[in-house]
């Protein structure tokens, strides 16, 4: 192929792509009523939660109540999962057919808001903090504008086996990193041939990034400097990764490969771990796998502490597309889905932590000890995200942490490289 012909083919390809995009997105807008005063219209909702028949039943019941309140609005629901949320968002937005209301995770708000895909909600932070903890509101805010309202929280903190602790005469969960290591060493059990039969502390059952970050926050570290630069190679962050590395490589309180997130059995429930960094949902898993542990109150919770207590807070937020034809109806649905009744139903179905302060007194929260513990400690909750490039950056954490745990790199090296990569991603925009 000659050079000229190659470049001509390239130019033709670009023209064709342009035409394809233009046809797909640039069509005339359907001329339905756009009377903003009246809340009406057919809107579409994309949800990665409310999965399965149970979830669907819950949502449909709530939407029935919504319909009573707004008889002129019809809601068409598209059920998906977090695993395929990005594919759904990408194709629908690329196709110029975004969903009016989109439920998404904490890290999604900045990139989507920065690129103009989200509509600003008619809310102010001052009003929101009356109903929510300030830390819960923040992930929905980008550059001082509110784009998302929280429905539910996913929190990560420490879980431990009260019975195993009592057996060893340990009265309280660890209150700093040194104690964490010490108790971990003490409760680790290996058989005669040196095979690990019980991990003193399990840091591998939870997603590695979401294990590292609460440790980093507890150690006084932050994700970003005051002027928005990556700070996850600060001495505090390195100290947190050092702790994880020490647990695996020095103390040998757990072997790399002992378990992994999503394993069929949770080591804490199997009695193969004395404590762990885990998710509030793990209580539900324990209840399924070993119901007696929950019944006999053998599972305790603790905040990860060193310089300060810290808890990882993720969650699901409701947003409105900037391209929605019926913004009033969409915003009404967001308000409805985040109000007490609907969000409680959603949390109950998934065993998650409600975002609204007022739900701390609900029957559900009182019955779910993990949710209760999380709500009591929201003042120490920290969220990831914050910059548009976060979705790109976060994928590199796992390998960096693993390279330290495997001894391929020192924690400092691993985090320096990760920070350099993040800087490049942010610079690229």
């Amino acid at each position, binding site marked *: 192929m000659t050079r000229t012909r190659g470049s001509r083919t390239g130019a033709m390809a670009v023209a064709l792509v342009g035409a394809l995009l233009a046809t797909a997105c640039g069509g005339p807008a359907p001329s339905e009523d756009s009377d903003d005063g009246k809340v009406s219209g057919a809107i579409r909702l994309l949800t990665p939660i409310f999965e399965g*028949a149970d979830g669907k039943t819950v949502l449909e019941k709530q939407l029935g109540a919504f319909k009573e309140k707004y008889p002129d609005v019809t809601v068409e629901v598209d059920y998906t999962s977090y695993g395929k949320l990005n*594919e759904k968002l990408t194709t629908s937005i690329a196709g110029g057919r975004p969903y009016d209301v989109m439920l998404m995770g904490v890290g999604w708000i900045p990139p989507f808001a920065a690129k103009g895909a989200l509509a600003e909600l008619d809310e102010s932070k001052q009003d929101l903090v009356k109903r929510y903890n300030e830390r819960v509101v923040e992930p929905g805010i980008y550059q001082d504008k509110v784009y998302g309202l929280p429905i539910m929280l996913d929190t990560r903190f420490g879980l431990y086996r009260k019975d195993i602790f009592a057996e060893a005469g340990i009265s309280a969960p660890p209150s700093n990193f040194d104690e964490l290591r010490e108790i971990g060493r003490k409760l680790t059990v290996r058989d005669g041939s040196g095979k690990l039969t019980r991990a003193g502390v399990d840091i591998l059952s939870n997603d590695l990034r979401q294990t590292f970050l609460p440790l980093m926050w507890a150690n006084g570290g932050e994700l970003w400097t005051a002027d928005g630069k990556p700070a996850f190679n600060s001495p505090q962050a390195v100290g947190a990764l050092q702790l994880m590395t020490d647990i695996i490589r020095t103390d040998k309180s757990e072997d790399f490969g002992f378990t992994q997130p999503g394993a069929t059995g949770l080591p804490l429930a199997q009695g193969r771990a004395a404590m762990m960094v885990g998710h509030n949902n793990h209580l539900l898993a324990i209840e399924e796998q070993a119901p007696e542990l929950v019944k006999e109150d053998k599972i305790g919770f603790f905040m990860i502490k060193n310089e300060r207590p810290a808890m990882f807070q993720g969650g699901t937020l409701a947003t409105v597309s900037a391209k929605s034809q019926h913004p009033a109806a969409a915003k009404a649905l967001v308000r409805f889905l985040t109000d007490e009744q609907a969000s409680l139903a959603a949390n109950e179905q998934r065993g998650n932590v409600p975002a609204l302060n007022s739900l701390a007194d609900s029957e559900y929260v009182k019955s779910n000890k993990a949710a209760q513990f999380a709500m009591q400690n929201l003042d120490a909750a920290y969220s990831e995200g914050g910059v548009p490039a976060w979705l790109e950056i976060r994928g590199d954490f796992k390998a960096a942490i693993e390279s330290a745990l495997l001894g391929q790199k020192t924690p400092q090296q691993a985090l320096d490289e990760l920070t350099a990569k993040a800087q490049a991603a942010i610079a690229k925009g």
Partner: protein
Amino acid sequence: MKPRFDPRLVLHLLLGVGAVVMVVPFVWMILTSLKSRADIAAYPPQLLPDEWVWSNYQAALDYAPFGTYFRNSLFIAIGHTVINLMLATMAGYALARVPFRGRTVLFMAVLAMMMIPTYTKIVPQYLIAKGMPFFGGNDYLGRGGYGWLDSWWVLIIPGALTPFAIFLFRQFYLSLPRELEEAARIDGMGEFGIFARVMTPLVKPAIATVALVTFENSWNNFLWPLLVTTRDDLRVIQVGLAAFQLAERTEWSYLMAGSTLATVPMIVLFLFAQRYFVQGFATAGIK
């Protein structure tokens, strides 16, 4: 003197061991589908369930509208298989048996179409489906409406023809002796007649293979049906199975029960299709 032993016994022993290694995961899947949650979480895992929880199957089926999903998947898979067989046999035959200018280029183009991964093709394909002129409220330039999105068209047509099938048929038509075709031509048979009545009956094993593979790929397809539909009544069985894998935990027993049920049609199809691997010229192979 040769010792008197049956070489077939050795063969059966070898094949038997191999076969066991191949089916272990499937058996494990069935056993897991009958375990309680506590059983599944046990360490070390036990082969047999402590208690046989047959109700997992009912619970799995109640978890999502699997009746609808099953019907949709079946309809789509049959549609794909039929269309693929009709179009790909013709294309494969033409590429293999008729000399024309540009045949090699065309053949290489067919191969090249397999070389770009799904994940990059899928956004343009979505845009094409949405921009389908005259459908779903679109004008003649494909603007204004939703095209084929959320319709049976988009579930069946885009995936109905595979370069894989064209390529396979080409290779099989290539290996047929030329004498057959020439004899038919002397009898005054036209090109299409030779294709349909002389040559195609001789590639039955290839037809069985393509049918099996097309059905299976279609049956297991997940991403495309998920992206191009928003309504539950157009979704397929794999989308239903994916719902068992929640963000923070997996309903293992239900997932295994659902997957077992989803595998049954393919096993049946295989046992049916493999009968066609005895026809043609062959009988015994090597002894």
